[in-house]
């Protein structure tokens, strides 16, 4: 994998770190029902799923 594509993955790491930390995570810090679970769970799982999807895409696309 080229350096450039490796940095995309590092960027994914940095972005999830920011999304799952103060202050952004506090925006979703509620137990209100969202798709059957408390909002905070829904938010964390969404970020989680998105990060897997993006990583998967980057790895498959630029795997040489």
């Amino acid at each position, binding site marked *: 994998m080229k350096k450039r594509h490796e940095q995309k993955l*590092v960027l994914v790491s940095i972005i999830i770190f920011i999304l799952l930390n103060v202050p952004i*995570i506090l925006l979703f810090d*509620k137990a209100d029902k969202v798709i*059957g*679970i408390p909002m*905070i*769970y829904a938010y964390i799982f969404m970020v989680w799923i998105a990060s897997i999807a993006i990583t998967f895409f980057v790895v498959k696309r630029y795997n040489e």
Partner: protein
Amino acid sequence: MNSVGLFILVLLYLVLLFFIASVAEKSRKPFWVNNPYIYSLSIAVYCSAWTYYGSIGVAATRGLEYLTIYIGPIIIIPAWILINAKIIRISRVNKISSIADFISLRYGNSRSLGALITLICAAAIVPYIGLQIKAISDTFHLVSHTANSNNIFTDSATYVVALITVFSSYYGTKYVDASERRVGVIAAVAAESILKLVFFLVLGIYVTYGVFNGWDDLYAQASTFSDFAHKNSIGGLTGALNWCLMSLLSMSAIFLLPRQFHTTIVENRREKHLRTALWLVPLYLLLINIFVFPVAWGGNILFKGASVNAEMYSILIPQKFGQDVITVIVFLGGLSASVSMIIISSIALSIMMSNNLIIPYGILNRISESNVKDNTKLIVTVRKIGIALLIVCAYLFYKFYINENSLFSVGLMSFVIIAQLAPSFFAAIFWKRGSYWGAVSGLIAGVFMCYKMLILPEMSGANVSHSFFTIDYFDPMTNAFFWSLFVNTVIFAVVSIFGKGNYTERNYAEMYVDIDKYLKYQDSAFVWKGTAETEDIRRILIRFLGEEKTKQALHIFNQKYNITDEEDTADARLIKFSENLLAGRIGTASAKILIESVTKEDKISLPEVLGILEESKQNILLNKQLTEQSQKLKQLSAQLQHANASLLEKDKQKDEFLDAVAHELRTPITAIRAAGELLQDDEDMPEGIRSQFLYNIISESDRLNELINDILYLDKLEHTEQVLEIAQYNIKNTIKKVIQPIEHLVEKEEIKLDVRLNLTREFFYYDEKRMIQVINNLLANAIKFTKDRHGEILLSVCNPQENLELKIYNSGKQIPDDELEMIFEKFYQSRNQNLKKPLGSGLGLSISKKIIEAHHGYIYAKNILDGVQFTLSVPQNYDKYEKNNYSR
């Protein structure tokens, strides 16, 4: 289910593991050996019983914070592509077999640092293994409805643990070389990862859809709890701070836990397997976490008011509804989680104990004296006993100490202690200045802080006393983590910066941080000065590798560096190479000690090391540049040769050209001279013959004139002084102008001339006068070469892609393929033509080519059917500016 039945089930389960391990070990097919999915699943050993039972307990009683254990890893895993790729490369080059090796090698291959790290890991991991045993034991008793017995020998859990011990020590010590990959164990662990995930999902689906009516029902019932909102939130800014620190803690754990280092780094077979792990491991962690919330709150709802251990909800819930199958399945899943953790942790720890503690401090003298067979046996035995001892210790720890404490707190305590390795670990990869003393003092200070703030209060059983260090909005655990790591990092950095550098350390620092640069020249990256005999080193190698393998290894080494087998003084490369060979078996520190015992090393200063390293770096660079330059030179010389050849050819052509010119000029002159002489000598010549001679003189002079004109014109064209008069002309008219004068000739020769116009427009830009000249030339050529009678000539005009294209075909003799290009050269006359007197000046095609090129077009000849076709093309897309340029 009774305890005997359950015990037999456990036995069957372990037999299955043995079976998978032995199949993988024996077949060694690519499926087992080269499989990124097995690699990724083996990393899921991260999910131990703590995940399986502990998460549910925390989610039920405390809330969200169990998630932090996974948030840290999922944040950092995408960046593994950079960090772990580097660690894997360093470990591969240096034959590193544990985290203790990895860190201690970087700080000068120090025996004491390796031992210190081993002790810290053991202190952190033995209780953690104890936890797993506790989970197995507790759930065993819960499922079989038996009481927890205090007598070790009557407690059935003891026998379960004994079985696991046998399995780990059998498969964990299959290879003497600790850096060797263990196919069997890893395959078994990967299988266990699948089992624990599937079984946990079965439980989750059962609770969510079997016991409750889906997520909405669960949420509706759970939200009636008064603490529901509180437990399902981060807990404001204070909670978020704890959350952040806990994520950092788990982030460092996924690198530093010996079992994680072992599966991700030591057992990595191909670097590219890492790419699959990048998405598969987070996916795995996600799947195993999805049903934690419903099971935890399902338990809270079902056991409201009852005093039960929330950690056991996953077994208690199916048990409450009499679902024996699901109960047993959950138990087996938990067993998989525990067993895989115990196996990998104990293997990793036993390697560290043997390579970093027992061999360098205890039996090194003994093994350096005896032979390969005894040594191999001894090392394997040490590791086997090590594994057994660790599990026994953990078992005793569980029996007599942690019986009352929850999975979560003991687990976190291990994490905090292991996290003390973080500063020296990450600095090893990214910071060249970190020093041995910095690492040691930082580690000791960090561990001391852990002891003061975590272990002491835990042991005394008292509540954490409020001390100066207590930060109110931190949990005791985050508080301890924060302070210990803070003190550790600061001391490490300060001591490193203020201390004087040491050359061996700096040598490894360069190698670690710039691993990509040294990867190719791995052995040259090691600086060593002194005297050593190849024979002495060979003798040591034989003791550990055996006669045959040593011979092979040294042969490979000699071939790689172009050294003759007779060479008897060893250089730095051989020293490093031999250390690497030994490192897997006895650890890097012992390897160094052994090699040192037979060599005499000269002291060198740090600047000298840096100088040598810089030099070797530059050498590598220079080498690269040299090869590049020599390649360039090669290309240049090839071009020169080509140019020379074509010059020679041109020279020859010029000679021939001069000959031809002389010959051509002489012919008409001879004719003129002959006619003149006759006219002078014979004054009584009849009028008819006389005028015939005069006519000959005039026509020959014309030919002479034409020839000289052609030569001059060609010269003009070649010096690009020729002015073209480009304007819009009707191509039809131009063609007509060409055809009319030769129609008569064509008829006489009985040649069939066909003109085909296939045009979308009629007006094109060109210089009409010159174009006529070109077409004339080509047609004259065609007539000349058409078979004497009944030949045919075809002139076709079209305009593809904005270009004006003419094709002139004539039947008749073809041009040899290798001469197709040469015919456009001056005075080129076909080889077979030399016999006959040439008909034209021999400049026609040359002039035509020059004219077309001045139009920015091209011309070429091709053999088709039973004749030759000339194609010329003139572009029409030049803009006004260029047009002006032409008619300048």
